C-alpha cells in the first residue's frame, strides 16, 4: 500500500459542524431555530512523509478541531482524510482501525491535564503498549518504557514516579514518550509548548526535532505562535474562522505572505530587536463563528476588501508555490 511519492496524510474538504442548539423544549417554546457552528469548513492539505505541517490561527479558528478530526476523536461532517492511501475514518470503525490508530498518535496542550495523576509514569507510558498488545511481558514493557523515557531526555528510573513529581516541561516529555510508545509514523501535536516557559519550550522543541530526524516522523503541529511555527515547520497553513486562507512552504509564507490575514498576523508579532517600535495594530476582532460574515470571512477587517469580497466566498487557488483564498490576490490588487 505504502507509496513513497504519495503524501502520508491527505485531508480532502474536511468539515466539522457542531450542533449548539438550545434544548428541544426551549426551541419549541421560544421558537428558536437550530444553531449550527461550522468549526471547520472545507479544509484540504497534504503532508509528506517526514515533514511538518503547521496550522496557525487565532483562538476559535478551528485548528484544534482539525487535529481531533485527524486522530479520529471527531467524526467529520463532510470530506475525509486519507492516511497512507487508505480512508482513515472508514478504517477507524473497523477492526483494522486499531492498527491504524497505532500509527497516528497525539500530544495534547496541557501536560497537567493529559496525564493521570494516580498512575505512575511507567503505567502511563506502558498503557498504549498493553492496549495495542505490542508487548505483554512485564520485563519487556519495563525495558521499552525505560528506552522511551531516555529518548526524551528523562531517566529510566523516572518510570516509578508520579506525574506531580515532574515540572511542566518534563510532563510534556512524558506525553511525547507515551505518544511514541506505539512507534507511530504520524504525530498530531496540539499546541505542545503553549503552556511552557521559553527555556523549557526550547528543550521540548529540540527533542521533537531530534525525534523527527531519528525516526522519520511526520508532524501536524498546531500553534498560535508564529515564531515557534517558523522554527519547526516545513509547510504552514493559516486558518481563519474554520477555513484555510493560505498554505505555502515556510520560507515563501514568511518572506512573501500573500493573504491580507497572514500579513496582519506577521505584522502583529512583537519584534524583539527593534525595541520601542510600535506595531501597526489591526482593528477589529475575530467574528462570531455562529454568525460568520458573508463572502470572505475576513472582509470586515481587511484593508483590501471590496464589494465582491463581501458577497462571494473566495476559493483556494494555486499560485506559484502558494495556495491562497483571496479575491484581491486573484485580481492582482495586492
Amino acid at each position, binding site marked *: 500500500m505504502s507509496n513513497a511519492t504519495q503524501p502520508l496524510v491527505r485531508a480532502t474538504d474536511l468539515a466539522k459542524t457542531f450542533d449548539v442548539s438550545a434544548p428541544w423544549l426551549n426551541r419549541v417554546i421560544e421558537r428558536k431555530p437550530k444553531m449550527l457552528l461550522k468549526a471547520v469548513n472545507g479544509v484540504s492539505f497534504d503532508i509528506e512523509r517526514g515533514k511538518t505541517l503547521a496550522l496557525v490561527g*487565532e483562538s476559535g479558528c478551528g485548528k484544534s478541531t482539525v487535529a481531533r478530526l485527524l486522530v479520529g476523536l471527531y467524526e467529520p461532517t463532510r470530506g475525509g482524510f486519507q492516511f497512507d492511501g487508505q480512508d482513515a475514518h472508514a478504517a477507524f470503525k473497523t477492526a483494522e482501525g486499531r492498527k491504524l490508530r497505532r500509527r497516528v498518535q497525539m500530544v495534547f496542550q496541557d501536560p497537567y491535564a493529559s496525564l493521570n495523576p494516580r498512575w505512575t509514569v511507567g503505567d502511563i507510558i506502558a498503557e498504549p503498549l498493553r492496549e495495542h498488545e505490542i508487548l505483554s511481558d512485564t520485563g519487556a514493557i519495563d525495558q521499552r518504557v525505560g528506552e522511551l523515557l531516555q529518548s526524551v531526555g528523562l531517566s529510566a528510573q523516572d518510570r516509578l514516579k508520579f506525574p506531580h513529581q515532574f515540572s511542566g*516541561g518534563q510532563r510534556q516529555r512524558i506525553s511525547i514518550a507515551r505518544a511514541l510508545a506505539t512507534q507511530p509514523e504520524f504525530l498530531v501535536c496540539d499546541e505542545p509548548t503553549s503552556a511552557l*516557559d521559553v527555556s523549557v519550550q526550547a528543550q521540548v522543541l529540540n527533542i521533537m526535532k531530534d525525534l523527527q530526524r531519528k525516526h522519520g516522523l511526520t508532524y501536524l503541529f498546531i500553534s498560535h505562535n*508564529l515564531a515557534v511555527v517558523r522554527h519547526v515547520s516545513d509547510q504552514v497553513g493559516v486558518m481563519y474562522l474554520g477555513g484555510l486562507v493560505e498554505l505555502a512552504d515556510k520560507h515563501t509564507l514568511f518572506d512573501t505572505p500573500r493573504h491580507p490575514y497572514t500579513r496582519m498576523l506577521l505584522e*502583529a508579532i512583537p519584534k524583539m530587536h*527593534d*525595541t520601542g517600535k510600535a506595531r501597526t495594530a*489591526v482593528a477589529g476582532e475575530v467574528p462570531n463563528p455562529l454568525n460568520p460574515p458573508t463572502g470572505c470571512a475576513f472582509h470586515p477587517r481587511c484593508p483590501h476588501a471590496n464589494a465582491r469580497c463581501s458577497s462571494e466566498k473566495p476559493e483556494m487557488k494555486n499560485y506559484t508555490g502558494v495556495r491562497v483564498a483571496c479575491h484581491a490576490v486573484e485580481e492582482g490588487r495586492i
Partner: protein
Amino acid sequence: MSLLQVKNLVVEFPSRKGTLRALDDVSFDIAPGEILGVVGESGAGKSLTGAAIIGLLEPPGRVGSGEILLEGQRIDNLPYAQMRAIRGRKIGAIFQDPLTSLNPLYSVGRQLIETITTHLPLNASQARARAIELLKDTGIPAAEQRIDHYPHQFSGGMRQRVVIALALAAEPKLIVADEPTTALDVSIQAQIITLLKTICKERGAAVMLITHDMGVIAETCDRVAVMYAGRVAEIGPVHDVINRPSHPYTAGLMACIPDMSQDRENLHQIDGAMPRLNAIPRGCAFNPRCTKTMDKCGQQRPNLVKAGNTQAACWLHETGGAA
C-alpha cells in the same frame, strides 16, 4: 524623585518546614511616567513583586523585610484601610484574565462608577459621564450603550479594555499590569499594548508591566528587570538588556526564543529548570545551570553591579573585568 522605590524587598511564606523566601532582596525603582518591564519564567517572583506593591499578598505570604515607598512614603506597613485608599487611587491594577477581574453580576458601568465615586469627589451623573469618557478613551465603540452591558457581553479584548478603564478611573500615578495580554490573541494583544502605552503616556502614569513575553517588553518598556528565583538577575534599559545582555541567564533566555529573522536547526537551550523555593542553591541561584560558572558562584551571592549599560548580579562583572 522616583515614583516608586522598592528597597531590599523580602517576601516570605512561613511553612511547617521552615520559612520559604519567595522574593529575596529585590530592589528597583520606577520614575514618574516610566514603563518598567518585569520579565522571567513561571515561579521567578514577578507576580509576587506586583502583589507586594499593591498590598495584595495572599496570607501566609508577608513582607519579611525591606521597604516599598510610593512618592517617598512607605506603603508596605500601612494598615488595611489606608492601603485600600491608595489602591485604586494612586496605584491601579490590571490582571491577566479580564473575565475574573470583572464582577459578572454588575454592568461594567456600575463597576466603573463605583470605583470613580469611591476615589473622586463626583456625584452619580458626573461619574457616569466620566465612565463613558473612559470607555471611549480605551477604544470601546458606542460607549453610551455599552456602559450598561455586562462583562459576558464583551469579547476578551473588549473586556481587557474595560479593565484598563477601571484601572485608570481615579487617575493613578502607577499602574501594575500583571500579564495583561497573555490571555489574548496576537492581533488583539497588539491593540491592547498600543492602547496601554499611549493612554499611560497621555496621562503621565508609570507602568510596571509584568510579562513572560520578551516581545511585548521590547516594544513597550523603557527599562526591564529580569527576575530569576525570586531575585533580580539584571536590570537596565530595554535595548541594552535585549541586544547586549550581561547576565548569562538573560543571554540564555534571549537565545531560547525562536527568532523570526533567522533559521536555526536547533534552539539554544538552558538545561535544567528553575529551582524550587525550598532548594535554592547557595551563592548565585543560577549557578547550577550556568555555562560560565566559577568556584565563587556556588559560595557567595553576587550583588547587582554595573555591567555595561545595565546592572547585573553576576560575578563575571563584580570585578569590573571580562565578561
